């Protein structure tokens, strides 16, 4: 593998971190609150633990094929034709995930910053900039995304301004919702943490041992869990439970209520930063999808597939006119994630053991 297409483990760490902090950081405290009330932060940790298990599962599969991406693995295990179908399915999944993030991002922009700007204009903004980024070599994409991932820092600084407002009593009673609800609340965290699947595709392109790569991915997820737990904690202590019931995006409300020096609306500062971060996540999905397509058509470079992928995603995001349909996209994407990230890898792993399919070490 030539040097132009590899990335380092440090880059992998930051990239995975970047992808996992997605749209959901804005609404996670609310959605978790609905289920697990004051025990929200416990749910986040539980979800984080589940994520580690899923990552471990995927890694066990990837480890058996150190120089193949998920696309090659499905062909190796399931054979040519089923493999092709599975590749298309994975491409579809990544495309759908990207689109769901895009739709959510558009929703936030529309609600909070640009109420009157038509949808096509904002989508066009995403369209051109993501085509420009995703067309580059993986190494350059990684460089850009590493820079974007540093934006987590200002985001967290802004959120931590909420510390001034916290009231720990709001957390009590901690197990108000009961353990079953707290556990089912952890699935919300799972959904918010999707994005690590990027490593299914780039795994062979990362330098280093496969154990080291696992460490990067696992560590990134752990950091994100900490950040999510922090965010949930701040939001559920800064707002009373009754207030939280009414706020679908508590993080923005939080920032809105804090005057920041001469700035009356810190959310206007937060949202563009958040949006760039989201843009990075979307591009990650587009890259994985384009890579899949280029693999399917045996193209050397993913470049040619990019415009189609991005255009398809933007068209899907443009079509629905009802709010329900928009939400449907994310629901489908999140539901299918369970299949593509848990059931299918598990199935493949078992199959690879049964069929004794394993990549020969070169």
């Amino acid at each position, binding site marked *: 593998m030539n040097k132009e297409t590899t990335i380092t483990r440090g880059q992998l760490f930051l990239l995975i971190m970047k992808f996992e902090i997605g749209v959901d950081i804005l609404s996670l405290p609310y959605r978790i609150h609905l289920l697990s009330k004051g025990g929200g932060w416990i749910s986040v940790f539980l979800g984080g633990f589940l994520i580690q298990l899923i990552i471990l599962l995927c890694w066990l599969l990837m480890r058996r094929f150190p120089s193949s991406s998920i696309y090659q693995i499905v062909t190796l295990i399931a054979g040519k034709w089923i493999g092709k179908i599975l590749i298309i399915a994975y491409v579809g999944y990544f495309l759908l995930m990207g689109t769901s993030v895009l739709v959510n991002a558009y929703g936030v922009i529309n609600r909070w910053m640009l109420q009157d*700007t038509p949808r096509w*204009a904002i989508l066009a903004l995403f369209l051109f900039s993501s085509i420009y980024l995703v067309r580059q070599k993986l190494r*350059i994409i990684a460089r850009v995304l590493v820079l*974007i991932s540093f934006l987590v820092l200002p985001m967290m600084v802004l959120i931590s301004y909420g510390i001034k407002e916290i009231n720990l009593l709001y957390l009590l009673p901690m197990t108000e919702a009961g353990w079953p609800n707290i556990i089912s609340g952890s699935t919300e965290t799972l959904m918010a943490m999707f994005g690590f699947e990027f490593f299914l595709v780039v795994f062979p392109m990362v330098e280093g041992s496969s154990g080291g790569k696992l460490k990067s991915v696992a560590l990134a997820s752990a950091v994100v869990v900490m950040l999510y737990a922090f965010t949930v904690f701040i939001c559920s202590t800064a707002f009373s439970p009754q207030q939280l019931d009414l706020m679908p995006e508590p993080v923005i409300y939080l920032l809105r209520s804090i005057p920041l020096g001469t700035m009356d609306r810190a959310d206007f500062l937060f949202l563009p930063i958040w949006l760039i971060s989201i843009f990075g996540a979307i591009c990650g999905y587009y890259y994985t999808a384009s890579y899949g397509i280029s693999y399917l058509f045996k193209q050397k470079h993913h470049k040619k597939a990019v415009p189609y992928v991005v255009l398809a995603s933007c068209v899907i995001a443009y079509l629905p006119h009802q709010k329900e349909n928009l939400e449907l996209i994310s629901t489908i994407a999140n539901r299918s994630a369970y299949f593509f990230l848990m059931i299918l890898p598990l199935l493949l792993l078992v199959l690879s053991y049964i069929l004794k399919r394993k990549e020969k070490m070169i």
Partner: protein
Amino acid sequence: MAPTNHAFSELKMNISYVEQSLYYTDDLKQQSLLFNGVQSVLLYIDSLVDQEIIQTHVLTALNGQADSEIYPLFTTLESRKDTDLQNGIDSLIQGKCLCILDGNPEFYILSTEKMYVRNTTEPENEGVIRGPHNGFIEQLSVNLNLIRRQIISPSLIVRYFNVGEKTHTKIAVVYLQDVTNPALIEEVKERISSISSDMVLAPGFIEEFVEDNPFSLFPQQLSTERPDRVIANLMEGRVAILAEGSPSALIAPVTFFAFYQSPDDYHGRWIVSSFLRLIRMMSFVIAFTLPAVYIATISFHSAILPLELAHTIKKSLQSIPFPALVEAMLLELIFEVLREAGVRLPSRVGQTIGIVGGLVIGDAIVRAGLVSYTMIIVVSLTAISSFLVPSHEMSSAVRILRFPMMIGAALFGYIGIAFGLVILTIHLCKLENFGSPYFAPVAPFRLKDMKDVWIRFPIWALRERPHDARPQRLNQQKFSRSWKKRE
């Protein structure tokens, strides 16, 4: 006459051959003289030679001696024997003088060039407060001399190239053999030798011929007239390209941040230098985002402003008939026009421009109700910030950059600015020159090289050369302050 290269034994034929080859140009002079009874002639181009050299070194030598060989006579001049007339003609147009003897197919080429040498004064647009005050001039040999005087090392290599089919411009590629990456040297040499053009004007032509990304807004080679800047960059394992007739050296590969490093940084105290460098980086951001942020704030997100400030700004905007974008564009364009008008005017007329621009337009345009006071403040701040860049090319790039940013801000508010910044970042990360990343050490991120980017660490802490040019040896100093331990 048939084209031939070998000189004739007959003097007349030689002379007429030379005359014909130079199309009977009027400044070709011939001076006949008798040497040991042999008819001989001195041929030279009047406008290129130093008459004094011919008088003192050639004519007196030839007249004073008799009964001796001619060749040993030119002891005080660089001279050589040749028989190829084509060589003779090439030497003639370089300012040399031919001495041809009748009955002899050999002739002598004497170095009698006249050089008009300007003083190596400090370049006007790259002045420093402390540090050396000399600069390159239009003559290659002097420039190389300035470099060689300061890097006294056998590993400093100069490679000459002649480019330009008609102009035969002499180009020198300078590098350090044991520091610079060999692949880089090969790449530079290959790109320079593949230049095929009738004319090569340095440095602009060379820059455009060899750069990697011709469609980028950003300059990809650092052009400097300061020997110390060239030397510092050579020591970092980069290559300098100098050309006859140009006082600018091109340095490749460079990173984006090289344009923000001034030679002054290394002569001042490091805390002060770091502070100045931070100011410069800040001014880079201000120079292309401030008008955009202002436009976005007043036309989309005025809620971000505290109430009192919002009132003040709204009041000043009340009588303005244009949207913020038009207002900003108008003022920015006026500023650009004034700047361009001021650049080439003599300084006495330049003052008039200052008065017309600053007082008349600046004040009157507000009174006329075309532009608001706040916009004047924003545009002036931007203008000043854009001039903080120590490199002229980068400063121009940044000035252009703010127009798309303004449009983005007018269309999408802060979101537009955010996307503008993202696209800019992607572009900077994408750029590579001569195989080195342009945006290093930020992308690819390398903490170790940050020592000389945002702030300047003390010199003794800069133990390693920057990594972006992939030098052969990273280490550039050992611990110079070991005496400190003894205390």
